[in-house]
């Protein structure tokens, strides 16, 4: 009887997650070029290659930059906006809530192409705007410059994902008992104090979960970069996922690509375990 309720979920997850994950680990021990069936066992050679591959190091930095921006900018900004929308005198509160969430539901391709237009060197909105106010020398090929491409892309991730965390935190703020707000008003606490000293500690668990989501999502990120830069120029905005995709389906190096995929998994797991361990309070988060 119970089997009937849990079996379907396990059929799907075993077939589409567990089995391929194991196969991936297995493939990572082989050299396997392209679409042929011929595989040669090479032991840990792919792993050696991975740890000496300078591009992997670049990817790591870029992925970590995504994590940092999500955790240090998107989440605090979202918390502040959620708090302001929930507690301050704001005209058109629900309009803002709806509007800020919209970039999250917008098709990723539309978002990516739109921002490529914003950054376009000749006709892009950003450069046109800079020229219009006389700052011609600041007009740059934003996505074509290896130093500027990551900051440019990171700004887009802030634009796209902050809304998600705003909604998460607004939901959490609604669960805070009204008494807390009443007492705070009585004490003359301002919003900043209320947020930092009362609400952040109270909503600690929600924040921990949000950070865990931010880490996993940032390490997995693929689509935005694929649409906007393809990891270029050269590897200046390459992420682990785009590099893996290129190795697998553009250079058909399936063994090495599997190794990268498995590395991506281990990295996610390690970061989340460290994060949960270090942030978790005595009373464990109820998963």
């Amino acid at each position, binding site marked *: 009887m119970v089997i009937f309720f849990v079996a379907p*979920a*396990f059929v799907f997850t075993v077939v*589409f*997650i567990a089995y*391929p994950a194991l196969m*991936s680990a297995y493939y990572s021990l082989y050299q396997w070029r392209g679409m042929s069936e011929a595989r040669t066992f090479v032991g840990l050679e792919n792993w050696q290659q991975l740890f000496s591959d300078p591009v992997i190091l670049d990817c790591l930095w870029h992925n970590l930059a995504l994590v940092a921006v999500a955790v240090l900018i998107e989440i605090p900004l979202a918390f502040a906006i959620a708090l302001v929308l929930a507690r301050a005198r704001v005209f058109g509160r629900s309009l803002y809530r709806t*509007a*800020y969430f*919209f970039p999250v539901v917008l098709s990723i391709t539309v978002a990516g192409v*739109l921002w490529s237009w914003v950054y376009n060197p000749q006709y892009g909105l950003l450069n046109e705007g800079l020229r219009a106010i006389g700052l011609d020398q600041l007009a740059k090929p934003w996505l074509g410059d290896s130093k500027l491409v990551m900051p440019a892309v990171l700004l887009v991730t802030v634009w796209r994902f902050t809304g998600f965390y705003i909604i998460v935190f607004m939901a959490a703020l609604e669960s805070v008992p009204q008494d807390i707000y009443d007492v705070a008003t009585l004490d003359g606490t301002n919003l900043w104090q209320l947020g930092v000293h009362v609400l952040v500690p109270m909503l600690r668990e929600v924040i921990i979960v949000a950070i865990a989501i931010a880490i996993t999502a940032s390490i997995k990120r693929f689509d935005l970069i694929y649409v906007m830069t393809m990891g270029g120029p050269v590897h200046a905005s390459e992420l682990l996922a785009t590099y893996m995709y290129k190795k697998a389906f553009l250079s058909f190096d399936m063994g090495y690509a599997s190794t990268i995929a498995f590395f991506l998994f281990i990295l996610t797991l390690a970061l989340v375990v460290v994060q949960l361990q270090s942030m978790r309070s005595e009373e464990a988060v109820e998963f």
Partner: protein
Amino acid sequence: MAKQLTAETWKGSRPRVEKRGFWVRLKGLSPHIALNLFLFSLLVLAFYPLIWMAFTSLRTNPELYTRPWGLPTKLNLENYVKVWETSPIPTYFLNSFIVSVISTSLILLLSSMAAYAFSRLKFPGSDVLFYALLAFYFIPPHIALIPLFFVLKALHLQNTYFVLIGPYVAFALPFSTLLIRGFMVSIPGELIDAALIDGCSKFGIFHRIMLPLSKPVLAVVTVFQFVSCWNEYLFALVFIHERNLKTLPVGLMDFVGEFHTDWVAMAAGLTIATIPIIIVYILFQRQIMQGMTAGALKG
């Protein structure tokens, strides 16, 4: 300025300002004005690219280069006609819709069934199984990409809706089950006991009591998973090569490639792809926001 403890102060949020002079009042209000201006400028920042896209779609190419700013001079629908007639955007849209609806329905059904078992039917090894399911949450889809690609190729299953639906459902299940289980645990046990006494079967309890009571969390799961299926890129890119079966994100990228010099037509195509989202979002935003704020996201 000493504050007197009056009834007004106790209300707190709205200090009385009528008696003060204009400048004092303005000074008192300025943080609010600054805050509202700030929120509004974020709004403009968030939306300007979209508005620009809509305006651009109504221009002609020469006009775009001479005056890229401001309102379009006339309602020029040429670009829309061109895009609608030459590109399969409606087909991409339909594909995305079919895949997302079927995946989301399956996700809802399977994860609520599992969540019910894990929250209410204690059985030997249920904890172990639950944590095993959760562990799958940390496995990124990328790891499944290459092995699945070859399995599907061997089974000649590439270029079907199924190759997307299977992974979408599987990768959504752990998180959805976690959310729904968290909600079901909070449903009072008395309700279930009462139903048991009345002779309700386990399946009856599931679909007569647990499902209706879990509506808020099911709404959250629906929104989350629909949006992520709708926007999924990696599997859609690798598993589907037939033009007529491509989903919107990948199909649109082909379209962008074809029209890459024709910005105004491209803008029309992207606008066509965005309008239905805006309509659905505006129609359902109340449900979306209510579901989201039902407190179901507390993990």
